[in-house]
């Protein structure tokens, strides 16, 4: 899952990145509205955390510009302005949620999880695929109830595929959503992580679809291709 944080306070920006990184997200950051708008316009994010009072271009304008250009990623507004008329203005501009400063990091993380899940079309905070279970709240994966240990990259990969299970996910898509923009993108590393994942979970769950990518599903790739 790849997120964008647009927040002009460097300390808060750093804390958000640290907390989101800990929670298993790849995070890009922008310190002003123009940069934030550009990133959101060009990169595929799974969710955006957007401050409203930004230098160069205010948050509402950034959001409206994205929505005009049909970018549908979920956006959470994080702002000190907590009057309802401001909240309504934010929601009307196309935001999906609203968190007022000062906030609890846990609350923000919970809201982000919910947004990402909702965007992928899942109602519950626990995602299932056959014997595989992903608890998004605890960032924990179990196979038949037995917890398995994953590195953070493996976790990100599996979490993304769990969110988009039953659909063929290309390597490029995986790279775009698993790594932040500074990461050295080499799609071969995806193959390496897929290989490692297959050793930790029932290997038949992940099907390689030649020329297209991978598919995580209970019944393998055939179900997806039908």
């Amino acid at each position, binding site marked *: 899952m790849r997120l964008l944080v647009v927040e002009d*306070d460097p*300390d*808060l920006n750093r*804390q958000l990145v640290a*907390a989101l990184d800990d929670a298993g997200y790849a995070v890009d950051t922008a310190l002003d509205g123009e940069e934030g708008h550009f990133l959101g316009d060009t990169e595929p994010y799974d969710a955006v955390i957007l401050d409203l*009072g930004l230098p160069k271009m205010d948050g509402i304008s950034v959001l409206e510009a994205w929505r005009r250009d049909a970018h549908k990623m979920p956006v959470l507004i994080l702002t*000190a*302005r907590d*009057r*309802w*008329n401001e*909240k*309504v203005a934010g*929601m*009307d501009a196309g*935001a*999906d*949620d*609203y968190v*007022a*400063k*000062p*906030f*609890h*990091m846990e*609350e923000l993380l919970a809201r982000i999880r*919910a947004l990402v899940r*909702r965007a992928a079309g899942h*109602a519950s905070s626990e995602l299932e695929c056959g014997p595989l279970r992903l608890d998004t709240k605890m960032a924990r994966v179990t196979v038949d109830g037995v917890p398995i240990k994953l590195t953070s990259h493996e976790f990100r990969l599996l979490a993304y595929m769990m969110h988009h299970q039953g659909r063929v996910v290309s390597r490029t898509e995986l790279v775009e959503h698993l790594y932040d923009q500074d990461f050295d993108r080499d799609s071969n590393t995806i193959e390496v992580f897929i290989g490692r994942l297959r050793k930790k979970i029932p290997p038949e769950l992940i099907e390689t679809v030649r020329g297209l990518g991978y598919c995580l599903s209970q019944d393998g790739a055939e179900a997806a291709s039908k």
Partner: protein
Amino acid sequence: MTFNSLAFRLIVAAAVSCLIVLPIAGIVLNSLFYKQLERNFDVRLQVLLSNLIAESIDEQSPDPVRPRNIGAPEFMQPLSGWYWQIRPLEGAGNVLSSNSLTSEKLRVPSLHGVAPNKNGGFQNYAKGPVGEKLRVHERIVDFGDATTPRRFSYAVAGSSEEIDEEVTNFIYIVSAALTLLTLGLLAATFLQVRFGLNPLRKIERGLAEIRSGQATRLEGEFPDEITPLQTELNALIKSNQDIIDRSRTQVGNLAHALKTPLSVITNEANSEKTSFAAKMVEQAHLMRDQINHYLDRARMAARVGVIGGTTDVRPVADSLVRALGRIHEDRHIEIGLECAQDLKFQGERQDLEEMLGNLLDNACKWAEKRVDVVFEVSQKTSGRGLSSLIVTIDDDGPGLSDVERVKVVKRGQRLDESKPGSGLGLSIVTDLASLYNGVFELDRSPRGGLRARLELPLAP
């Protein structure tokens, strides 16, 4: 009208000048009139004196003879107040006098040290035989030759009481006229002052309206002298308002600017498990509550008195329901809205949004499945004869006990720390509702949860 008022000053000034000027005018008029009467009287006496002299000269006699008639019957009546007398000045001789003088003598001016006038005559006032006031004219006539003078004093006297009577009458008339004039002037002054000071009363009303928030500036046509005052006053009000707005904006900006560093501190402290960090979190929360408290107060202060606009209820309700539906999308809460299209709230849109937003948000946080919002017009009319707007928000959540319901509206009270939110929402609703003379109450919902009820002014 008090002693220390412009009207009082103007009226007193007018009264004082009337009381000084008009008596002086009276005195001057009086003395002019008296002088005129006296002159006429003197002319009459001079004519009589000349007649007396002419009638007393006889070709046969070296001395004056008793004149027969000098043209006035009063000289024949005893002690009538009109007398004549011819008295020799050298040697012994008979004193001739009018019948009216009987055996009395006239007190002629030449014997009493009165200086002669430029015609060689004398005139003065003297007391008559019965104590009456007489005007006496006297002339010395010489009957002798160049070597032996034989001079006679001719005198004619008339009662000057008739002058005095006429003067007294005149004084009465003049005094009455002047008194009437004084009263008239005072009345005119009073009207003039009331009329003239009317714009001041208009200013007073205008200022009262500004203070009570019904107006923002001094409106209306004023006289030329007041227009600069009006302009300056409006400029003053405007600059005052600007200063208040500026400081209010700055309070808001400061409060909002503090929230980001507070977030940073809280997050930083939360990531450590020391007692120092715990203290930091605690204090940061105190600061957050203080900031919110003063931010609310600044917002409230901005509202006081200025209850101007009206707000269409339906669009506000629609966008709030839409926003809250999205915020609480996860919980699959169904929000039912019942609101007529043409309802109007007598007040500011953001206040309505704030009240409804907080109540709806709370309802959505606690509801199991469904929240219902109903807007209606009250059947009974309130004290001012206006209908009110009733908002009822029901949820099907766990609800609150009687004790909790009282507690929860107090500032910063949160019954369940696990639900997000600062816990300030309901007290803001209370404050805003009372600002609009409205009612906010919590009750048990027939659907099991909490019922929040707002009674707000309805715009016609």
